Protein backbone atom coordinates (compact mmCIF):
# COMPACT_ATOMS: atom_id res chain seq x y z
CA UNK A 1 0.00 0.00 0.00
CA UNK A 2 1.45 3.36 -1.08
CA UNK A 3 0.72 6.09 1.44
CA UNK A 4 1.77 9.73 1.70
CA UNK A 5 4.18 10.40 4.58
CA UNK A 6 2.99 12.20 7.68
CA UNK A 7 5.15 15.18 6.73
CA UNK A 8 3.51 15.38 3.32
CA UNK A 9 0.09 15.26 4.92
CA UNK A 10 0.88 18.07 7.36
CA UNK A 11 2.06 20.16 4.40
CA UNK A 12 -0.93 19.31 2.24
CA UNK A 13 -3.45 20.13 4.93
CA UNK A 14 -1.71 23.39 5.86
CA UNK A 15 -2.21 24.50 2.27
CA UNK A 16 -6.02 24.55 2.55
CA UNK A 17 -7.72 27.49 4.13
CA UNK A 18 -11.22 26.18 4.79
CA UNK A 19 -12.74 23.15 6.47
CA UNK A 20 -14.44 22.03 3.29
CA UNK A 21 -11.20 21.56 1.35
CA UNK A 22 -9.60 19.86 4.34
CA UNK A 23 -12.46 17.42 4.74
CA UNK A 24 -12.61 16.79 1.01
CA UNK A 25 -8.92 15.93 1.14
CA UNK A 26 -9.54 13.49 4.01
CA UNK A 27 -12.49 11.95 2.15
CA UNK A 28 -10.37 11.51 -0.97
CA UNK A 29 -7.58 9.89 1.05
CA UNK A 30 -10.16 7.55 2.53
CA UNK A 31 -11.39 6.56 -0.91
CA UNK A 32 -7.89 5.86 -2.20
CA UNK A 33 -6.98 2.95 0.02
CA UNK A 34 -8.19 -0.49 -0.99
CA UNK A 35 -9.70 -1.51 2.34
CA UNK A 36 -10.23 -5.11 3.39
CA UNK A 37 -12.13 -7.81 1.57
CA UNK A 38 -15.43 -8.91 3.08
CA UNK A 39 -13.84 -12.19 4.28
CA UNK A 40 -11.01 -10.34 5.98
CA UNK A 41 -13.42 -8.27 8.04
CA UNK A 42 -13.60 -10.74 10.90
CA UNK A 43 -14.64 -9.90 14.39
CA UNK A 44 -11.09 -10.38 15.73
CA UNK A 45 -9.95 -7.57 13.46
CA UNK A 46 -12.74 -5.27 14.52
CA UNK A 47 -11.68 -2.27 16.57
CA UNK A 48 -14.96 -1.11 18.00
CA UNK A 49 -15.72 2.58 18.00
CA UNK A 50 -19.21 3.83 18.76
CA UNK A 51 -19.84 5.67 15.52
CA UNK A 52 -18.49 3.35 12.87
CA UNK A 53 -16.82 -0.02 12.52
CA UNK A 54 -13.07 -0.11 11.99
CA UNK A 55 -11.08 -3.19 11.01
CA UNK A 56 -7.33 -3.49 11.37
CA UNK A 57 -5.08 -6.16 9.90
CA UNK A 58 -1.26 -6.33 9.92
CA UNK A 59 1.79 -8.39 9.19
CA UNK A 60 5.51 -7.91 9.56
CA UNK A 61 7.87 -7.49 6.64
CA UNK A 62 11.59 -7.08 7.39
CA UNK A 63 10.70 -6.18 10.98
CA UNK A 64 8.44 -3.40 9.72
CA UNK A 65 4.70 -3.33 10.28
CA UNK A 66 2.41 -3.45 7.28
CA UNK A 67 -1.13 -2.38 8.08
CA UNK A 68 -4.44 -2.71 6.29
CA UNK A 69 -7.50 -0.87 7.55
CA UNK A 70 -11.10 -0.42 6.63
CA UNK A 71 -14.05 1.53 7.97
CA UNK A 72 -17.65 1.83 6.89
CA UNK A 73 -17.41 5.62 7.27
CA UNK A 74 -15.25 7.30 4.64
CA UNK A 75 -14.08 10.22 6.80
CA UNK A 76 -13.01 7.76 9.46
CA UNK A 77 -11.20 5.84 6.72
CA UNK A 78 -9.44 9.05 5.67
CA UNK A 79 -8.46 9.74 9.26
CA UNK A 80 -7.12 6.19 9.43
CA UNK A 81 -4.88 6.98 6.47
CA UNK A 82 -3.55 9.96 8.42
CA UNK A 83 -2.77 7.61 11.31
CA UNK A 84 -1.26 4.93 9.09
CA UNK A 85 0.97 7.38 7.29
CA UNK A 86 2.78 7.62 10.61
CA UNK A 87 2.75 3.91 11.42
CA UNK A 88 2.80 1.98 8.14
CA UNK A 89 6.07 0.30 7.16
CA UNK A 90 7.68 1.37 10.42
CA UNK A 91 9.51 -0.58 13.12
CA UNK A 92 8.03 -1.16 16.57
CA UNK A 93 10.46 1.36 17.93
CA UNK A 94 9.43 4.02 15.41
CA UNK A 95 5.77 3.39 16.13
CA UNK A 96 6.11 3.71 19.87
CA UNK A 97 8.22 6.84 19.51
CA UNK A 98 5.76 8.70 17.31
CA UNK A 99 3.81 11.48 19.06
CA UNK A 100 0.31 11.07 17.62
CA UNK A 101 -1.25 13.81 19.76
CA UNK A 102 1.28 16.35 18.49
CA UNK A 103 0.74 15.17 14.92
CA UNK A 104 -3.03 15.62 15.15
CA UNK A 105 -2.49 18.98 16.75
CA UNK A 106 -0.30 19.96 13.80
CA UNK A 107 -3.08 18.79 11.49
CA UNK A 108 -5.55 20.88 13.48
CA UNK A 109 -7.68 17.77 13.93
CA UNK A 110 -7.30 17.27 17.69
CA UNK A 111 -11.04 16.88 18.04
CA UNK A 112 -10.73 13.55 16.30
CA UNK A 113 -8.10 12.20 18.65
CA UNK A 114 -9.21 13.62 22.00
CA UNK A 115 -10.78 11.08 24.31
CA UNK A 116 -14.45 11.77 23.67
CA UNK A 117 -16.85 8.92 23.97
CA UNK A 118 -16.95 6.52 21.06
CA UNK A 119 -13.77 7.68 19.43
CA UNK A 120 -12.62 4.84 17.22
CA UNK A 121 -9.49 6.67 16.16
CA UNK A 122 -8.04 6.75 19.63
CA UNK A 123 -8.90 3.07 19.93
CA UNK A 124 -6.95 2.27 16.77
CA UNK A 125 -3.91 4.24 17.88
CA UNK A 126 -4.02 2.31 21.15
CA UNK A 127 -4.38 -0.98 19.32
CA UNK A 128 -1.43 -0.30 17.00
CA UNK A 129 0.78 0.77 19.89
CA UNK A 130 -0.21 -2.37 21.75
CA UNK A 131 0.66 -4.53 18.74
CA UNK A 132 4.03 -2.77 18.43
CA UNK A 133 4.81 -3.09 22.13
CA UNK A 134 4.40 -6.88 22.34
CA UNK A 135 6.72 -7.65 19.44
Amino acid at each position, binding site marked *: MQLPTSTEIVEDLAFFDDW*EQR*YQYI*IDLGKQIPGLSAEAKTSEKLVKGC*QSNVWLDYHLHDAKFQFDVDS*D*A*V*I*VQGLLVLVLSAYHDKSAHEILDFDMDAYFKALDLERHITPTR*GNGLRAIVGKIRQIASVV
Partner: protein
Amino acid sequence: MSFDVAAIRAQFPLLQRDVGGKPLAYLDNAATTQKPQAVIDALIDFYTQCNANVHRGAHHLSDEATRRYEKSRDIMAQFLNAQHREEVIWTSGTTEAINLVANGVGQLFKAGDEIIVTELEHHANLVTWQQACKRSGATLKICPIFDTGELDIDAFDALLSENTRLVALPHVSNALGTINPIAHISKKAKQKGAWVLVDGAQGIAHGDVDVQEIGCDFYVFSGHKLFGPTGIGVLWGRKELLEIWPVWQTGGEMISDVNYQNATWGDLPNRLEAGTPNIAGVIGLGAAVTWFSALDMKAMQAHEQDLLEYATNCAHKLEGMRIVGTAPNKIGVMSFQLDNAHPADIGFILDKQGVAIRTGDNCAQPLMKRLGLPGTARASFSIYNTRKDIDQLFEALKKAKQMLA
Protein backbone atom coordinates in the same frame (compact mmCIF):
# COMPACT_ATOMS: atom_id res chain seq x y z
CA MET B 1 -52.65 31.77 20.39
CA SER B 2 -49.41 31.82 18.49
CA PHE B 3 -46.23 30.55 19.98
CA ASP B 4 -43.52 33.19 20.40
CA VAL B 5 -40.42 31.18 19.59
CA ALA B 6 -38.17 34.24 19.52
CA ALA B 7 -39.15 35.07 23.09
CA ILE B 8 -38.47 31.51 24.17
CA ARG B 9 -35.12 31.31 22.36
CA ALA B 10 -34.03 34.52 24.02
CA GLN B 11 -34.25 32.78 27.40
CA PHE B 12 -31.63 30.19 26.43
CA PRO B 13 -28.16 31.78 26.66
CA LEU B 14 -26.41 28.86 24.98
CA LEU B 15 -28.48 29.16 21.82
CA GLN B 16 -26.95 32.58 21.23
CA ARG B 17 -23.45 31.18 20.70
CA ASP B 18 -21.88 30.06 17.48
CA VAL B 19 -19.81 27.00 16.66
CA GLY B 20 -16.61 27.47 14.69
CA GLY B 21 -17.95 30.74 13.28
CA LYS B 22 -21.28 29.24 12.22
CA PRO B 23 -24.58 29.91 13.99
CA LEU B 24 -25.55 26.93 16.11
CA ALA B 25 -28.48 24.80 14.98
CA TYR B 26 -28.96 22.60 18.04
CA LEU B 27 -30.92 19.57 16.86
CA ASP B 28 -29.84 17.01 19.44
CA ASN B 29 -32.62 17.64 21.90
CA ALA B 30 -33.49 13.98 22.40
CA ALA B 31 -30.01 13.60 23.91
CA THR B 32 -30.37 16.60 26.17
CA THR B 33 -32.13 19.97 26.10
CA GLN B 34 -30.55 23.35 26.70
CA LYS B 35 -31.36 25.26 29.89
CA PRO B 36 -33.37 28.46 30.24
CA GLN B 37 -31.99 31.33 32.32
CA ALA B 38 -34.59 30.58 35.03
CA VAL B 39 -32.95 27.20 35.69
CA ILE B 40 -29.42 28.59 35.61
CA ASP B 41 -30.49 31.33 38.06
CA ALA B 42 -32.06 28.80 40.43
CA LEU B 43 -28.79 26.85 40.56
CA ILE B 44 -26.70 29.96 41.13
CA ASP B 45 -29.13 31.20 43.74
CA PHE B 46 -29.04 27.92 45.61
CA TYR B 47 -25.25 27.81 45.78
CA THR B 48 -24.82 31.50 46.54
CA GLN B 49 -27.71 31.91 49.00
CA CYS B 50 -28.79 28.73 50.69
CA ASN B 51 -26.46 25.76 50.24
CA ALA B 52 -26.84 23.37 53.18
CA ASN B 53 -27.73 19.74 53.65
CA VAL B 54 -31.42 18.91 53.82
CA HIS B 55 -33.54 17.28 56.53
CA ARG B 56 -30.83 17.38 59.15
CA GLY B 57 -29.35 20.72 60.11
CA ALA B 58 -30.53 22.52 63.18
CA HIS B 59 -29.99 25.84 61.51
CA HIS B 60 -31.63 28.42 59.32
CA LEU B 61 -29.86 27.52 56.07
CA SER B 62 -30.70 23.85 56.34
CA ASP B 63 -34.36 24.72 56.95
CA GLU B 64 -34.41 26.97 53.93
CA ALA B 65 -32.68 24.40 51.71
CA THR B 66 -35.10 21.72 52.90
CA ARG B 67 -38.09 23.94 52.18
CA ARG B 68 -36.91 24.67 48.64
CA TYR B 69 -36.04 21.03 48.10
CA GLU B 70 -39.43 19.77 49.25
CA LYS B 71 -41.19 22.55 47.36
CA SER B 72 -39.77 21.01 44.17
CA ARG B 73 -41.43 17.75 45.10
CA ASP B 74 -44.78 19.53 45.36
CA ILE B 75 -44.19 21.22 42.01
CA MET B 76 -43.32 17.88 40.42
CA ALA B 77 -46.28 16.03 41.98
CA GLN B 78 -48.62 18.68 40.64
CA PHE B 79 -46.95 18.65 37.22
CA LEU B 80 -47.44 14.90 36.90
CA ASN B 81 -50.86 15.00 38.59
CA ALA B 82 -49.66 12.50 41.18
CA GLN B 83 -52.12 11.70 43.93
CA HIS B 84 -49.53 11.98 46.69
CA ARG B 85 -46.37 14.10 46.90
CA GLU B 86 -44.42 11.17 48.41
CA GLU B 87 -44.94 9.26 45.17
CA VAL B 88 -42.24 11.46 43.65
CA ILE B 89 -38.85 9.85 44.29
CA TRP B 90 -35.70 11.69 43.22
CA THR B 91 -33.14 9.65 41.30
CA SER B 92 -30.09 10.59 39.26
CA GLY B 93 -32.01 10.08 36.03
CA THR B 94 -34.09 7.68 33.98
CA THR B 95 -31.45 4.98 34.14
CA GLU B 96 -31.24 5.02 37.92
CA ALA B 97 -35.02 5.15 38.25
CA ILE B 98 -35.40 2.01 36.14
CA ASN B 99 -32.64 0.30 38.12
CA LEU B 100 -34.37 1.31 41.35
CA VAL B 101 -37.60 -0.36 40.23
CA ALA B 102 -35.76 -3.42 38.90
CA ASN B 103 -33.92 -3.84 42.19
CA GLY B 104 -37.03 -3.04 44.22
CA VAL B 105 -40.13 -4.78 42.92
CA GLY B 106 -37.76 -6.78 40.69
CA GLN B 107 -36.82 -8.71 43.83
CA LEU B 108 -40.36 -10.10 43.85
CA PHE B 109 -40.01 -11.78 40.43
CA LYS B 110 -39.56 -15.54 40.26
CA ALA B 111 -39.21 -18.32 37.69
CA GLY B 112 -42.35 -18.58 35.58
CA ASP B 113 -43.00 -14.82 35.72
CA GLU B 114 -42.88 -12.87 32.48
CA ILE B 115 -41.71 -9.33 31.77
CA ILE B 116 -42.70 -7.67 28.51
CA VAL B 117 -40.59 -4.95 26.87
CA THR B 118 -40.69 -3.75 23.25
CA GLU B 119 -38.37 -3.81 20.25
CA LEU B 120 -38.14 -0.02 20.58
CA GLU B 121 -36.30 -0.03 23.88
CA HIS B 122 -33.40 2.25 24.80
CA HIS B 123 -30.68 0.12 26.41
CA ALA B 124 -31.65 1.55 29.82
CA ASN B 125 -35.08 -0.06 29.66
CA LEU B 126 -33.89 -3.27 28.01
CA VAL B 127 -30.65 -4.33 29.66
CA THR B 128 -31.98 -3.52 33.14
CA TRP B 129 -34.97 -5.89 32.71
CA GLN B 130 -32.90 -8.47 30.87
CA GLN B 131 -30.56 -8.61 33.87
CA ALA B 132 -33.44 -8.61 36.39
CA CYS B 133 -34.81 -11.65 34.54
CA LYS B 134 -31.44 -13.39 34.70
CA ARG B 135 -31.30 -12.82 38.47
CA SER B 136 -34.84 -13.97 39.18
CA GLY B 137 -35.41 -16.65 36.56
CA ALA B 138 -38.28 -14.66 35.01
CA THR B 139 -38.63 -14.65 31.21
CA LEU B 140 -38.19 -11.57 29.03
CA LYS B 141 -40.72 -11.22 26.19
CA ILE B 142 -40.23 -8.73 23.40
CA CYS B 143 -43.22 -6.99 21.83
CA PRO B 144 -42.54 -6.55 18.10
CA ILE B 145 -43.00 -3.40 16.02
CA PHE B 146 -43.98 -2.81 12.42
CA ASP B 147 -41.40 -1.38 10.02
CA THR B 148 -42.96 2.06 10.54
CA GLY B 149 -41.89 1.98 14.18
CA GLU B 150 -45.38 1.41 15.60
CA LEU B 151 -46.01 -1.26 18.21
CA ASP B 152 -47.85 -4.33 17.00
CA ILE B 153 -50.73 -4.21 19.49
CA ASP B 154 -52.15 -7.59 18.41
CA ALA B 155 -48.79 -9.16 19.12
CA PHE B 156 -48.75 -7.39 22.48
CA ASP B 157 -52.17 -8.83 23.31
CA ALA B 158 -50.87 -12.28 22.43
CA LEU B 159 -47.83 -11.89 24.71
CA LEU B 160 -49.85 -10.63 27.66
CA SER B 161 -50.93 -13.40 30.01
CA GLU B 162 -51.67 -14.29 33.62
CA ASN B 163 -47.91 -14.79 34.01
CA THR B 164 -47.05 -11.22 33.01
CA ARG B 165 -45.74 -9.40 36.07
CA LEU B 166 -44.54 -6.22 34.42
CA VAL B 167 -44.79 -4.39 31.12
CA ALA B 168 -41.99 -1.86 30.56
CA LEU B 169 -42.18 0.37 27.51
CA PRO B 170 -41.16 3.81 26.29
CA HIS B 171 -43.69 6.62 26.19
CA VAL B 172 -41.84 7.83 23.10
CA SER B 173 -39.10 6.06 21.14
CA ASN B 174 -35.81 7.96 21.31
CA ALA B 175 -34.60 6.49 18.03
CA LEU B 176 -37.75 6.81 15.92
CA GLY B 177 -39.98 9.31 17.70
CA THR B 178 -43.04 7.02 17.84
CA ILE B 179 -45.56 7.99 20.52
CA ASN B 180 -46.85 4.73 22.01
CA PRO B 181 -50.44 4.19 23.20
CA ILE B 182 -49.36 3.95 26.84
CA ALA B 183 -52.83 4.47 28.37
CA HIS B 184 -54.30 1.70 26.22
CA ILE B 185 -51.45 -0.66 27.05
CA SER B 186 -51.64 0.17 30.76
CA LYS B 187 -55.33 -0.64 30.80
CA LYS B 188 -54.82 -4.00 29.14
CA ALA B 189 -51.90 -4.90 31.39
CA LYS B 190 -53.84 -3.94 34.51
CA GLN B 191 -56.66 -6.24 33.45
CA LYS B 192 -54.16 -9.11 33.70
CA GLY B 193 -52.83 -7.84 36.99
CA ALA B 194 -49.44 -6.79 35.57
CA TRP B 195 -47.55 -3.66 36.62
CA VAL B 196 -46.65 -1.08 34.01
CA LEU B 197 -43.49 1.01 33.89
CA VAL B 198 -43.36 3.82 31.36
CA ASP B 199 -39.92 5.10 30.35
CA GLY B 200 -40.84 8.74 29.95
CA ALA B 201 -37.36 10.03 29.07
CA GLN B 202 -38.56 11.22 25.65
CA GLY B 203 -42.19 11.79 26.53
CA ILE B 204 -41.93 14.23 29.39
CA ALA B 205 -40.89 17.35 27.45
CA HIS B 206 -43.46 17.06 24.70
CA GLY B 207 -46.85 17.31 26.28
CA ASP B 208 -48.99 17.00 29.31
CA VAL B 209 -48.14 13.86 31.22
CA ASP B 210 -50.87 12.90 33.69
CA VAL B 211 -49.87 9.72 35.48
CA GLN B 212 -53.39 9.04 36.75
CA GLU B 213 -54.85 9.39 33.30
CA ILE B 214 -52.18 7.11 31.81
CA GLY B 215 -52.97 4.50 34.44
CA CYS B 216 -49.43 3.13 34.73
CA ASP B 217 -47.70 2.16 37.97
CA PHE B 218 -44.32 3.80 37.36
CA TYR B 219 -43.33 6.72 35.17
CA VAL B 220 -39.64 7.61 35.03
CA PHE B 221 -37.65 10.38 33.35
CA SER B 222 -34.51 12.55 33.44
CA GLY B 223 -34.50 16.22 34.34
CA HIS B 224 -31.90 17.08 31.71
CA LYS B 225 -34.30 16.29 28.85
CA LEU B 226 -36.85 18.61 30.45
CA PHE B 227 -34.72 21.79 30.45
CA GLY B 228 -33.40 20.92 33.92
CA PRO B 229 -29.91 20.03 35.18
CA THR B 230 -28.12 16.72 34.59
CA GLY B 231 -27.82 14.21 37.41
CA ILE B 232 -31.43 14.49 38.55
CA GLY B 233 -34.48 12.52 37.54
CA VAL B 234 -37.75 11.18 38.81
CA LEU B 235 -39.33 7.90 39.65
CA TRP B 236 -43.03 8.38 40.07
CA GLY B 237 -44.68 5.26 41.47
CA ARG B 238 -48.01 4.33 42.98
CA LYS B 239 -47.80 4.68 46.75
CA GLU B 240 -49.16 1.19 47.50
CA LEU B 241 -46.39 -0.29 45.38
CA LEU B 242 -43.57 1.86 46.67
CA GLU B 243 -44.58 0.81 50.17
CA ILE B 244 -44.30 -2.93 49.56
CA TRP B 245 -40.95 -2.33 47.95
CA PRO B 246 -38.00 -4.29 49.35
CA VAL B 247 -35.40 -1.54 49.82
CA TRP B 248 -32.33 -1.60 47.63
CA GLN B 249 -29.93 1.17 48.60
CA THR B 250 -29.51 1.74 52.30
CA GLY B 251 -27.78 4.45 54.31
CA GLY B 252 -28.53 7.80 55.89
CA GLU B 253 -31.92 9.48 55.56
CA MET B 254 -33.85 6.34 54.62
CA ILE B 255 -33.88 4.65 58.03
CA SER B 256 -36.07 4.90 61.08
CA ASP B 257 -34.28 3.05 63.93
CA VAL B 258 -30.83 1.56 63.75
CA ASN B 259 -28.82 -0.59 66.08
CA TYR B 260 -25.65 -2.54 65.33
CA GLN B 261 -27.46 -5.62 64.11
CA ASN B 262 -30.72 -4.30 62.65
CA ALA B 263 -32.48 -1.37 61.09
CA THR B 264 -36.01 -0.35 60.23
CA TRP B 265 -36.94 1.82 57.29
CA GLY B 266 -38.42 5.28 57.29
CA ASP B 267 -41.50 6.40 55.38
CA LEU B 268 -41.82 7.42 51.77
CA PRO B 269 -40.27 9.24 50.06
CA ASN B 270 -37.12 9.11 52.25
CA ARG B 271 -37.21 5.33 52.38
CA LEU B 272 -36.16 5.22 48.71
CA GLU B 273 -33.74 8.16 48.81
CA ALA B 274 -30.65 6.93 50.66
CA GLY B 275 -27.86 9.43 51.29
CA THR B 276 -27.51 13.13 50.59
CA PRO B 277 -29.56 13.84 47.48
CA ASN B 278 -28.72 16.08 44.53
CA ILE B 279 -30.19 19.12 46.27
CA ALA B 280 -29.22 21.70 43.67
CA GLY B 281 -30.45 19.39 40.93
CA VAL B 282 -33.83 18.99 42.60
CA ILE B 283 -34.20 22.74 43.01
CA GLY B 284 -33.06 23.34 39.42
CA LEU B 285 -35.53 20.77 38.14
CA GLY B 286 -38.30 22.42 40.15
CA ALA B 287 -37.43 25.69 38.41
CA ALA B 288 -37.46 23.93 35.03
CA VAL B 289 -40.92 22.49 35.63
CA THR B 290 -42.26 25.85 36.82
CA TRP B 291 -40.85 27.46 33.69
CA PHE B 292 -42.14 24.74 31.38
CA SER B 293 -45.63 24.53 32.92
CA ALA B 294 -46.18 28.22 32.26
CA LEU B 295 -46.01 27.60 28.49
CA ASP B 296 -49.09 27.08 26.38
CA MET B 297 -48.91 23.30 25.88
CA LYS B 298 -51.25 23.15 22.90
CA ALA B 299 -49.36 25.90 21.08
CA MET B 300 -46.06 24.26 21.97
CA GLN B 301 -47.15 20.91 20.56
CA ALA B 302 -48.45 22.60 17.42
CA HIS B 303 -45.08 24.32 16.97
CA GLU B 304 -43.21 21.04 17.34
CA GLN B 305 -45.53 19.29 14.89
CA ASP B 306 -45.01 22.13 12.43
CA LEU B 307 -41.24 21.63 12.67
CA LEU B 308 -41.60 17.89 12.15
CA GLU B 309 -43.87 18.35 9.17
CA TYR B 310 -41.62 20.99 7.63
CA ALA B 311 -38.54 18.80 8.10
CA THR B 312 -40.33 15.74 6.74
CA ASN B 313 -41.32 17.65 3.60
CA CYS B 314 -37.76 18.88 3.09
CA ALA B 315 -36.58 15.27 3.50
CA HIS B 316 -38.94 14.03 0.82
CA LYS B 317 -37.48 16.58 -1.56
CA LEU B 318 -33.86 15.62 -0.93
CA GLU B 319 -32.91 12.80 -3.25
CA GLY B 320 -31.39 9.79 -1.54
CA MET B 321 -32.74 10.70 1.90
CA ARG B 322 -34.92 8.21 3.72
CA ILE B 323 -36.68 8.79 7.04
CA VAL B 324 -36.47 5.92 9.49
CA GLY B 325 -39.58 5.78 11.68
CA THR B 326 -42.73 6.84 9.90
CA ALA B 327 -45.44 6.26 12.50
CA PRO B 328 -48.33 8.70 12.09
CA ASN B 329 -48.08 9.66 15.75
CA LYS B 330 -44.58 11.06 16.33
CA ILE B 331 -42.81 13.76 18.31
CA GLY B 332 -40.19 15.97 16.68
CA VAL B 333 -37.62 13.28 16.01
CA MET B 334 -36.32 12.62 12.49
CA SER B 335 -34.00 9.65 12.17
CA PHE B 336 -32.73 9.23 8.66
CA GLN B 337 -30.33 7.70 6.22
CA LEU B 338 -28.65 9.25 3.22
CA ASP B 339 -27.65 7.06 0.29
CA ASN B 340 -23.93 6.25 0.16
CA ALA B 341 -23.24 8.20 3.34
CA HIS B 342 -22.45 6.64 6.68
CA PRO B 343 -24.18 8.40 9.61
CA ALA B 344 -20.79 9.20 11.16
CA ASP B 345 -19.69 10.98 7.97
CA ILE B 346 -22.91 12.99 7.93
CA GLY B 347 -22.37 13.92 11.58
CA PHE B 348 -18.81 15.17 10.96
CA ILE B 349 -19.80 17.34 8.00
CA LEU B 350 -22.89 18.75 9.71
CA ASP B 351 -20.85 19.59 12.78
CA LYS B 352 -18.53 21.71 10.63
CA GLN B 353 -21.58 23.71 9.57
CA GLY B 354 -22.84 24.37 13.08
CA VAL B 355 -25.49 21.65 13.02
CA ALA B 356 -25.59 19.39 16.08
CA ILE B 357 -27.26 16.00 15.60
CA ARG B 358 -26.84 12.49 16.98
CA THR B 359 -25.37 9.70 14.89
CA GLY B 360 -24.97 6.00 15.59
CA ASP B 361 -27.04 3.31 17.21
CA ASN B 362 -29.14 5.74 19.29
CA CYS B 363 -28.47 3.53 22.36
CA ALA B 364 -30.78 0.96 20.78
CA GLN B 365 -28.59 -1.68 19.14
CA PRO B 366 -31.24 -4.43 19.00
CA LEU B 367 -33.67 -1.98 17.37
CA MET B 368 -31.08 -1.02 14.73
CA LYS B 369 -30.53 -4.73 14.00
CA ARG B 370 -34.29 -5.26 13.82
CA LEU B 371 -34.47 -2.48 11.21
CA GLY B 372 -31.41 -3.83 9.41
CA LEU B 373 -29.44 -0.61 9.86
CA PRO B 374 -25.92 0.06 11.14
CA GLY B 375 -27.33 3.18 12.79
CA THR B 376 -28.97 6.42 11.79
CA ALA B 377 -28.42 10.13 11.83
CA ARG B 378 -31.03 11.73 14.08
CA ALA B 379 -32.23 15.32 14.24
CA SER B 380 -34.50 16.02 17.20
CA PHE B 381 -36.42 19.24 17.74
CA SER B 382 -37.42 21.16 20.82
CA ILE B 383 -39.63 24.14 21.57
CA TYR B 384 -36.90 26.69 20.82
CA ASN B 385 -36.07 25.38 17.35
CA THR B 386 -37.23 27.19 14.25
CA ARG B 387 -37.69 26.49 10.56
CA LYS B 388 -34.43 28.37 10.11
CA ASP B 389 -32.61 25.63 12.08
CA ILE B 390 -34.16 23.09 9.75
CA ASP B 391 -33.14 25.07 6.67
CA GLN B 392 -29.60 25.10 8.06
CA LEU B 393 -29.81 21.32 8.55
CA PHE B 394 -30.83 20.74 4.95
CA GLU B 395 -28.26 23.13 3.52
CA ALA B 396 -25.68 21.20 5.51
CA LEU B 397 -27.06 17.87 4.30
CA LYS B 398 -26.84 18.98 0.67
CA LYS B 399 -23.21 19.87 1.24
CA ALA B 400 -22.60 16.49 2.88
CA LYS B 401 -24.16 14.70 -0.07
CA GLN B 402 -22.02 16.61 -2.51
CA MET B 403 -18.79 16.07 -0.56
CA LEU B 404 -19.36 12.37 -0.01
CA ALA B 405 -20.53 11.65 -3.56
